[in-house]
């Protein structure tokens, strides 16, 4: 049966996964991998359900006070602005809840039946009372409604003098296109053109490639990266968000509300941070179910000081160096030949201005802190596991790669790690 085989497949996969470090520790430090604990089997997990509640309570209180995706304990001005309305509403709702509970409990304690023949006075209604408890909530809600509408328009207001960044959702990773260093404006448009997925097939069959209508057209050259969004502290950033495939949802809980990434549409989201947030790493997650590895479509937002941001921006825009070590040079040959990576990835130094081909643009891969939907730290061990079996690493991953030998993997990893300015 299907469930069974899927479970088996997953277990198999997981044994691979466990050799990689998949999670980041609670601290905001990206570079702190945590080894995933020992393998779990179905039996095992069931047994562990019985872990005593008290132990859990103790752990919960001590384990992580930071709640890296909290919508209550937030960092950015916009998230705070949302909470300035959301929290009072939550409290009012709670107060009304307590009031209603009080009434109900009063009734069920006070008006228990006393004896079989106890028949109360037959009250059919009370017009004044009913008008009152219709009108009172309506008035209260009207007040909340006015405040809510005000907040909607406040947040929707387009900021002046912001840095534009284009965000493209892919199954299951985020691509970021920045303007050239020194520039701040972008105006991405959707346009009709050759379907990149059909170009090769069309060439083989000697026909025109299929035309599609959701290609992203930029005004000028861009700088493409993936996984971690860098933003300058204290400066407003406008994200122009779209999707290459299915619907995703871009969400950085500590900075702003979420917005869908929709193929064929471009949504805008303003992110901002405080000047003293520099150095913080904020967690993000795709929030709309987008297929098998939806849970693995994560990202990080790195808030840099303006100087650090400028430095980073320049480094990803500069042409990458050619590999120097022998191993890496071998890897480059494999990348562009035997392993066929270049069918989907750009990595050549001169491709720094291209968006994603099909997979992420890898020109400055070694600069990135994470890869594979930001679920893994970018290190040798994880890369090796990834190249051995991407689908085991990230279920359903679109990456197609033939079975590689350990030697080949070593070469490719060396090449990938050489990719920086």
């Amino acid at each position, binding site marked *: 049966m299907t469930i069974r085989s899927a479970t088996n497949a997953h*277990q198999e996969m997981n044994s691979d996964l466990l050799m990689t470090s998949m999670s980041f520790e609670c601290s905001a430090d990206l570079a702190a991998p945590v080894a995933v604990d020992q393998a779990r089997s179905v039996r095992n997990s069931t047994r562990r359900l019985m872990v005593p509640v008290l132990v*859990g309570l103790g752990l919960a209180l001590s*384990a992580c006070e930071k709640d890296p995706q909290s919508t209550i304990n937030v960092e950015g001005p916009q998230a705070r602005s949302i909470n300035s309305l959301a929290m009072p509403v939550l409290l009012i709702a709670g107060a009304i809840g307590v009031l209603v509970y009080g009434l109900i409990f009063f009734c069920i304690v006070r008006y228990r039946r006393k004896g079989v023949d106890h028949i109360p006075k037959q009250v059919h209604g009370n017009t004044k009372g009913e008008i009152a408890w219709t009108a009172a909530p309506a008035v209260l809600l009207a007040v909340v409604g006015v405040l809510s509408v005000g907040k909607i328009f406040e947040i929707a207001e387009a900021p002046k003098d912001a840095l534009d960044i284009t965000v493209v959702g892919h199954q299951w990773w985020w691509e970021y296109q920045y303007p050239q260093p020194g520039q701040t404006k972008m105006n991405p448009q959707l346009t009709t053109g050759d379907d990149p997925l059909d170009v090769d097939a069309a060439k083989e069959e000697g026909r025109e490639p299929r035309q599609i209508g959701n290609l992203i057209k930029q005004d000028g050259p861009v700088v493409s990266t993936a996984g971690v969004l860098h933003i300058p502290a204290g400066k407003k950033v406008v994200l122009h968000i779209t999707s290459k495939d299915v619907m995703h949802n871009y969400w950085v809980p500590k900075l702003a509300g979420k917005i869908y990434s929709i193929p064929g549409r471009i949504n805008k989201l303003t992110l901002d941070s405080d000047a003293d947030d520099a150095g913080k790493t904020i967690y993000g997650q795709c929030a709309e179910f987008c297929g098998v590895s939806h849970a693995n479509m994560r990202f990080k937002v790195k808030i840099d000081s303006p100087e650090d941001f400028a430095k980073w921006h320049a480094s990803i825009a500069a042409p990458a160096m050619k590999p120097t070590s022998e191993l890496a040079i071998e890897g480059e040959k494999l990348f562009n030949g035997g392993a066929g990576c270049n069918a989907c990835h750009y990595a050549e130094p001169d491709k720094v201005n291209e968006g994603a081909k099909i997979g992420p643009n890898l020109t400055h891969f070694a600069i990135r802190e994470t890869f594979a939907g930001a679920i893994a730290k970018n290190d040798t061990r994880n890369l090796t596991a990834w190249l051995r079996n991407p689908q085991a690493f990230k279920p359903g991953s679109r990456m197609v790669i033939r079975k590689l030998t350990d030697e080949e993997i070593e070469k490719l990893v060396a090449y990938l790690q050489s990719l920086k300015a």
Partner: protein
Amino acid sequence: MAIVLEPSRNSPALPGGSGAVRPKPVSDPGVLRRPVESTKGIVSWLTTVDHTRIGVMYGALSLVWFVIGGIEALLIRLQLAQPNGDVIGADTYNQMFTMHGTTMVFLVVMPLSSAFFNYFLPLQIGARDVAFPRLNALSWWLFVFGGLFLYSSFFLGGAPNGGWFGYAPNTSITFSPGHNIDFWIFGLQILGIASTVSAVNFIATIINMRAPGMTLFRMPVFTWMTFVASFLLLFAMPIITVALFLLMFDRNFGANFFNPAQGGDPVLWQHLFWLFGHPEVYILILPAMGIVSEVLPTFSRKPLFGYPVVVFSGIAIGFMGWGVWAHHMFAVGLGPVATAAFGVSTMFIAVPTGVKIFNWTATLWGGAIRFTTAMYFSVGFITTFVIGGLSGVTHSVVSADTQQTDTYYIVAHFHYVLFGGALMGLFSGFYYWWPKIFGKMLNERLGKVHFWLMLLGMHLTFGPMHIVGLQGQPRRMYRYDKGMGFDFWNMIETVGSFIIATSLVVFFVNILITSRSKAVAPADPWDARTVEWMTDSPPKPWNFDVVPTVHTVDEFWHRKYAEDDDGSIRRVATAEQVLTHDPVDPASIHMPSPSWWPLIAAFWFPVTAYGVLYHAWPVAVLGGVGILAGFFGWSLEPSAAPHDDHHDDHGHGDDPNSSFGELVAGTAH
């Protein structure tokens, strides 16, 4: 505004009635002959058109689906019990949450409500059956086959895995190339036909078949909520039908309705889905609200406080429910004007909902409350529904919702509304009406154990979801990392879910014990108030020997008690005295004969669906021909079994069971 029927319409026909003499039907070909009415044997269940038997079957099968949907929920909770859990894996997890949602909505809460509609709607309005008994049987069989079809996907390549909301383009052929989504599309289409047909049937029944004197504003509130929910169904199901057809064409015939690459728009799917999906929420909750509105007055020994207000607030919810769908889409980027409008409309739907809560509480106020299990569940309904309602108001603040949507905060909200709300209300109905349906009392002590376990499990499972939701745990993720602050509460949720499962075991044990027990329930175990209790338990196939003439909402109560002008009360008759009447010859009451055709017609729907799904066109054509043949047989079938003595006694016109529909279609039985 009330539609008062002529009293003669539903009064029992006298033997040898007066109607116009009709020619005796010539002997029909055997294949079209109707089976003779019988109450024993498998054939009697397969061919029944009796609303009580159909109601019982609806209830029983819904409980089976409830167990299956519950097992799916437990698998989800096992997978999420710990960070980076690995109990079922990514793809199976996606199938589980898709099927859990789809099952609980379409195969559990809707048909459970339908079970109560079927059984109690005719009884509450003093009718002998529904307006279209054979259509009723068709709804039932489509529900059976639709559910089986949907679940056959598990054995044919994998269950649907695109979520119960099926957002395009993830559900397109490009991104979901297997047949998983096709099973979902066709399964919902079949179940949708069942629901639409039921809705027509219940509306026609309520409009046309009320007992003499029962004006619309003398109908019990459960009947009223059935009425409103049926209208919502009637208008909501066509929308999802259209959406599913478009998706079917995208997937199977190369259309591009939702394909942005070719100029389609996936946001269109969301509008269509939620334009159905939000009224659907009220379809799920209104019947439970109706049940609670019956139970609270009975056990408080007071009339429902502000009956007209409760009814009108139900109607208001029914109307306003059509103007709030985009609150499921606040993060889609509809722009500030649209989100502001839908945010405000969503806030104001809280007003009629709040009115109901206050009126229920006022019903308790000053009452003489008897705490039976049914009452426990109804009070449990109010207390959990209040939490779900209030968290709903917090979503209506659009900017806050952009943080909350697609997180566990939402999962908490709608489980408080649909589990703590709808299902608790339905369980209240089980305990309240069990003696009516089976003539035996469910064990009250076990019932209370069931209640407390379920309430505890419910709060443990769904309460912490508010917290992890606000801590930023998104929905529909098969795993989460350590160190996110989710671990502890997820474990608590899993423990809670197993407590809920235990409570259901208690419920099923209770059913088992009750079914073995010989003790017979009293005629009026709860000192009830409404018309459905003015007959035997279980009722005879014709429901009432003498159809009562109704003077007030709480007709039964007012026959037992006299109310003075100052609201004081004295007993004037026992329930037994009220139920006693002059003997009536059962042969004078003509009930519709059983029929094979609903079963036959319904059988071909999944066949057609398999044909289209696998592009096996001969099979699809065969199925289509089968459906047509089924309905032809249905239309040509005589209106009664061959040995039915009363067949030629009455013309259709004054047949006690004749209905509006029959007058129109001529084939109602």
